[in-house]
């Protein structure tokens, strides 16, 4: 009876250990997905957002990108290499067009083509209301590259797939 008791306790300890490992040492894929969750959180905007929250969110967005990031977003004439500071400015101006904004990512499929490089194919949906009262609902397919710099996954490339080319 005592042996069974010890066995149960040992099993519980092993299970707690495994759970803690998954919780405190997430896989690289989870770490990459977390970056998208953060980008979604920082890009989203509630009505009546104050300056302090806005500044914090812009700082948060900036921290998700590498020193340079390549954008290919032909619909918005956004193509080329942008520095972290330029990205902050783009995010600031972009968010200023909206009174409410929700950015969500779906169907994230990640792979690691090289060491410290992650490629993620995903769908991004942007919904919200412009400051002029127009409803916005856009969905796009994206390919993103993230590089691991000092144990952090940072966006290094973002391309919106052009399905319909005028």
């Amino acid at each position, binding site marked *: 009876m005592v042996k069974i008791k010890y066995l149960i306790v040992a099993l519980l300890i092993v299970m707690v250990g495994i759970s803690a490992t998954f919780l405190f040492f997430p896989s690289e894929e989870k770490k990459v997905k977390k970056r998208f969750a953060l980008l979604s959180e920082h890009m989203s905007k509630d009505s009546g957002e104050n300056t302090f929250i806005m500044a914090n969110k812009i700082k948060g967005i900036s921290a998700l990108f590498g020193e340079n990031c390549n954008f290919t977003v032909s619909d918005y004439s956004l193509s080329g290499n942008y520095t972290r500071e330029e990205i902050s400015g783009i995010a600031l101006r972009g968010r200023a067009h909206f009174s409410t904004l929700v950015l969500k990512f*779906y169907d994230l499929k990640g792979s690691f083509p090289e060491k410290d490089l992650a490629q993620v194919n995903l*769908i991004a949906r942007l919904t919200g209301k412009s400051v002029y009262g127009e409803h916005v609902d856009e969905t796009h397919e994206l390919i993103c590259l993230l590089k691991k710099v000092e144990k952090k996954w940072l966006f290094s490339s973002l391309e919106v797939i052009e*399905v*319909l*080319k*005028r």
Partner: protein
Amino acid sequence: MEPTYRSRGVNFCWRLRYLFSKPTRHDVVVVRFAGSKVMLLKRVVGLEGEQVEFRDGKLFVNGNPLEEPYVRHPCNWNLSPRKVDNHCVYVVGDNRSMPIENHYFGQTSMERIMGEPLW
């Protein structure tokens, strides 16, 4: 695609439609727009190698006006001539009541054509 198809309606797609044939002009096709779930219904107006343009809302293919009885809402779109690349088709929606910049249309790869709507 209004009034031919209701916006955000439920439609079934016949995936085998273009297994052995290519889309032809005036076909309504299902275009895979994002991932495997976001689809658009569009009408094929230009085929590979053809030149497509809009002049005051009228669609011209290879310089000839195209009869489009399915377009109910007149528009004043203007788009300079452009050639459809190989292995691509040019698709436009039937509802052209909105400004040209607000309408999803253009050249798309044949690989993005998933089939045709069943009804």
